[in-house]
């Protein structure tokens, strides 16, 4: 049985579902290029001793030079928190935030993530992204609150036009339950 809040959100956002499903945002290149300092911080934070990221001889032999850990992917699309040259205010995973604003669902969590990796990202690479809304689900309630799940696919390409990865984010955005 639907609660009153579920019915209210379903009614209020029904017309937005077809309007937003399939929308594409070309976010362009990231604010930063891949470089070793970020890579070192990443492997420091995950206590990752893989010699690909610490030993230049291994990196040269195995990957023909330094690469970034594949799982670092989303690092290259996040905007700087301060950038005097920023063209406009772009939030990380901008499409997700535009959806939250449009649906008036102020809270959001990532519930699932799938990444398919292609060309490695290397120091000096500048990564561009396109974000696509692939699915917006029905209204549901869980322990956090009431809202809708949605899925956003992000395609990452390097400055040579090669696809480096495609990432799919599953989100749940909601209004908190009254406690």
């Amino acid at each position, binding site marked *: 049985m639907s609660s009153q809040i579920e019915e209210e959100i379903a009614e209020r956002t029904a017309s937005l579902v077809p309007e937003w499903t399939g929308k594409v945002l070309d976010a362009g290149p990231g604010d930063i290029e891949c470089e070793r300092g970020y890579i070192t911080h990443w492997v420091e934070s995950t206590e*990752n001793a893989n010699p*690909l990221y610490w030993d230049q001889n291994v990196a040269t032999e195995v990957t023909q030079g330094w690469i970034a850990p594949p799982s670092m992917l989303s690092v290259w699309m996040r905007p700087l928190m301060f950038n005097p040259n920023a063209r406009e205010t772009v939030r990380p995973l901008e499409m997700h935030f535009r959806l939250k604003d449009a649906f008036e669902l102020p809270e959001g969590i990532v519930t699932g993530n799938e990444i398919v990796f292609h060309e490695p990202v290397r120091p000096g690479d500048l990564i561009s992204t396109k974000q696509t809304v692939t699915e917006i689900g029905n209204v549901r309630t869980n322990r956090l609150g009431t809202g809708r799940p949605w899925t956003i696919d992000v395609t990452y390409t390097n400055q040579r036009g090669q696809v480096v990865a495609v990432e799919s984010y599953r989100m749940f955005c909601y209004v908190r339950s009254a406690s």
Partner: protein
Amino acid sequence: MKLLFEKVQVGDALPTLEVDVTARIVVMGASSSRDWQPQHHDYAWATGRAGTKDIFLNTPNQAGWIERYLTDWTGPHGRLGRMKFRMRRPVYPGEKLAFNGTVRSTEVDESGTGWVDVDIELTVGDETATEASARLAIPRDEKDNPWRRSGDDWRP
């Protein structure tokens, strides 16, 4: 260390990894992934606004830990082709996070790449925090190197 495809069997268990999660690990994970959403560094915001018990590990950093767990096993020649995960509950400072993995399947594709599919579970006590699966290419012999594959020879 180089794990070879012929040494891997369906049902093989990866060595368990245990991580004592601290506030530093959570915040450093947010910093290294350049993720400044407040629930990953601001206790007052996490508990007061997001309604969680504390700050918690962010998604990209969990991906990083999972990759590290997998390449601890394969060595540097192991190359991630695909990774999927679903968070079941947040992971908070003060918790011990355990990583366990099992080989679900192995396959050699038409390009000759040796693929290993692994199911991974991240647990806190007896609770599942995150379920994951990954597809890794590992060398089929001493001369093979999955990192040299691209284009039609790389089909993750």
